[in-house]
Structures are given as C-alpha cells and as structure tokens.
C-alpha cells in the first residue's frame, strides 16, 4: 500500500514530538489557557492536524486509543494511528489511555472513561476533544496553574458539561484530563481545575 500525502506523519519526529509535547505540557500546566499550535500534519478527516500531532507525540505500543463514532467510522483514521503510533485501538472507552473525540456534543460522559484508582489515579484516560472554537470567556476556573481565576469555554460541548466537570473534580485525585483542540489552537483542563462559575454551555 502506497502512503498517500494524507497519511504522512511527522517529518522530523524528534523535533516535532518535543515541540508538540511542550505545547501540551504548557497547556496542562496552565488550565484553560489557549495556545497556538503550529501543527502541519494532514491526517485523514475527521482528525485535525492539532489532535493528530498530540497523539503521534504521546501514543505508542504501550498505550490504548479509543475513537468516538465519527472517528471510528473512518477506517483511514485507524490505519493512520496504527501505522504511525503502533497503539492498540480499543472498543471500550474505559480501557483507553487516550480518547479522541470528534463529535464532542455527543461524547460519552466523562465518568465512563478510565478514572484511575485511589492508589494510582494516573491510570486514567486523557481525552483529546476536537472542538470548533475555544474562547477565553464563559466558564470560570480556579486551581493549580491558574493565578487567580481563568475564563475558558469550548464549543460545542454537551449541555451538562459544566456539571460533568464538577463531578470530575469531586472524584479528585481520580478523574480524567481533557485536551481541547481546534484546527489551530489547543487548551487543557486537567482534573485539578475547579469550575466555579459560568453559563451552561451551548450545544448544537
């Protein structure tokens, strides 16, 4: 099988993995801060270049990836991920180290992913959520990585997403961490983030 241009991975895996990781680390260390990504990958849709570079930088044969329905429906996505990462694709989201969400408005509840155990809360799923827009307004957060408070919102998300975030924080130190990606930006909400105010989010 010839690799089409759409299936190319990193040109310089060492450099690009490092740069992508530092961007994600920066995002995770500053909950709700929106960062510009210079990802140039051209993965098969519905994968975005931003989320594809995150998964290529972090996943390998030691990790399991779960795809939501729109991503799983596209065989090219599975081929792309298997070829470039060697990661296992799993059917149950509670078995996943990473989950890729292409249709966030219809995503499964956060509680259905791996939450880790009280002794090993790190054994949990990191969600990579592809959204249309990120904004520095809306929900208000406090907690580690935030100097005072931070405003952040992503659209589209499920209607009860703020409630789910509250519950995710209530499970701390268990819980899931979220990395949001648009085609040009990323942001993260680690489980340590406390949602303190904001409107119920709009869903489409």
């Amino acid at each position, binding site marked *: 099988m010839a690799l089409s241009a759409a299936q190319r991975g990193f040109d310089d895996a060492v450099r690009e993995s*490092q740069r992508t990781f530092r961007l994600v*680390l920066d995002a995770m260390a*500053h909950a709700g801060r929106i960062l510009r990504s210079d990802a140039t990958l051209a993965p098969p849709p519905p994968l975005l270049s931003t989320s594809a570079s995150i998964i290529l930088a*972090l996943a390998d044969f*030691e990790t399991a990836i779960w795809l939501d329905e729109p991503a799983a429906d596209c065989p090219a996505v599975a081929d792309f991920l298997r070829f470039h990462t060697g990661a296992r694709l799993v059917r149950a989201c509670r078995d996943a180290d990473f989950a890729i969400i292409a249709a966030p408005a219809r995503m499964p509840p956060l509680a259905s992913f791996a939450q880790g155990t009280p002794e090993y809360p790190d054994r949990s799923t990191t969600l990579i959520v592809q959204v249309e827009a990120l904004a520095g307004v809306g929900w208000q957060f406090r907690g580690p990585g935030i*100097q005072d408070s931070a405003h952040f919102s992503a659209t589209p998300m499920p209607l009860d997403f703020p409630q789910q975030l509250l519950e995710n924080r209530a499970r701390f*130190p268990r819980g899931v961490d979220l990395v949001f990606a648009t085609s040009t930006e990323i942001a993260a909400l680690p489980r*340590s983030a406390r949602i303190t105010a904001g409107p119920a989010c709009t869903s489409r």
Partner: protein
Amino acid sequence: MSDAAHYNFAYLDEQTKRMIRRALLKAVAIPGYQVPFASREMPMPYGWGTGGVQVTASVLGPDDILKVIDQGADDTTNAVSIRKFFERTAGIATTTHTRDATVIQTRHRIPEAPLKEGQILVYQVPIPEPLRFLEPRETETRRQHALEDYGLMHVKLYEDIARHGHIATTYAYPVKVDDRYIMDPSPTPKFDNPKMDMCPALQLFGAGREKRIYALPPYTKVVSLDFEDHPFERTKFDRGCELCGAEGIYLDEVVTDDRGGCMYVCSDTDYCEGRRAAPHAAAPPIREARR
C-alpha cells in the same frame, strides 16, 4: 553535531521520552501525586541525578537554554557534568544565569532570583516518598496517600517538638500541595519551601532510582506543614554573604583552612556573582562589622 550524531537528541530514545512525557502530564494534572515511571539506566550512577536528567532530557528542545545547579552552585562536579552531558548529547545552549534559562535542573536548591512564567525547574529527587521513613511499605504509603491519611506525618513533627522544643526538620520539609497530597520537596533546605508556593514557573521532580515523577504546576498552593502554636519558620541567618553582602538569602559554610577557619557565602553562585558584578554593589562587608 559530531558528538550528538551518535545519540538521539538529548540521549534518550523516543519511546522512553514518550513514556516519561505521559508521566509528566499526569503529574501536572495531579499536583503532588507520585507517578510511577519506567526509569532507565543512565550513564551516571543513581544518586547523581538520573531522575532529573531523564525529566530534563524529555522536556528539552533545541531552542532551550539549560542551567544546572548543585546546592545552588553552577560550578560543582554534578552541575558541570550534567551541563556537559546535555551540551554533548543535545547540542543545546547552556547558561549559569537564572534569568536567561528556560530549563533549570537543580539538586537541593531553588535559585534566589525569582523564577518567571515559562521557566521549568527540574528537581533531582533521592527519596520521593515523604512518608517512607515513617512507613517502609510502598503498599501502605500508597494507601495513606489515597485516603489522605497523614496523621503519621503530624505525629513525626509533634515528636520533633516534644524532643527539641521546635520542629527540627530543616530540609526535605514536608509540604501539602493544593490541600490534597503531602509531598517531599526533595532535600532542599526548608528556607526554599516558601518559594514553591504560587511559583510562576513549572516545577517537575524526577526520582530515578525510586522511579517516580511528580510536579507542581505554576500558581499552585504549597503549604509547609506546621501547627498553630508552632508555625513554620523559614531558616534565618544572623549574617550576610561575605562576598556580596546579601542578606536574607541561603548561606553555605566554606572551610578556609585547617584551623577551624571558615566563611559564609551565598549558596547561589549566580546570584552572588551577579551582585558583585553590578556597579551599585557595595564592597564586601567584613564579618566583624556585621555582628
């Protein structure tokens, strides 16, 4: 590039870096929690900063500027050899200036100059588990952290008071992170503990032999454990640095001869050199004049 060409960038292979990077992201998301990781053998013995080196190797990029300190000094064996290690294996720029560095690997000190947002401080950690000398079983300390059962640590600090009249722990002084996990700040002097609280820089901790990584995101609440009637007190020195005259900083005792002579100087060599190079710096004060 001739030296670097023999190794992957920054020595570690990419799969190892990915494994460490995944652990780092979990560590940042769960501040103060010790994430197990598959620590590799490094071309230096355990106890020489293999955990810190692996963390540094995993975050470092070609544009980073690295500073390495050992007890505050840029010019001691451990600091020099780790700095050279990354110069050779990553070909990156290094510095001794705290303000110029993007990544600072440290053994046992936090620089005196305030850290900035965007900087990463990597600690070399010998024993990551603050409860280890109180409870040797890992299964048990895991459960204590899970249940937030930290009574034992308070008993230990109380026994300090009962025996010495004050909390006698002066380094590796336990802290509570964001009101949840008790964390060992590595054997930094307790003088440095307040610098961890709400620090704008990202702080990463690597314990190579013990195979644990933990982290403090920027602007995280870090409280040194104490009692209402025995509040945490920062170490105070009754003198200043004999080279630059700085006060309110951490001092090292330097033996000057074999007849008991010694002098006290800044532990942070970059801070001391900066003060002495600055035009407004006063002439070094004489000890007798100070006290």
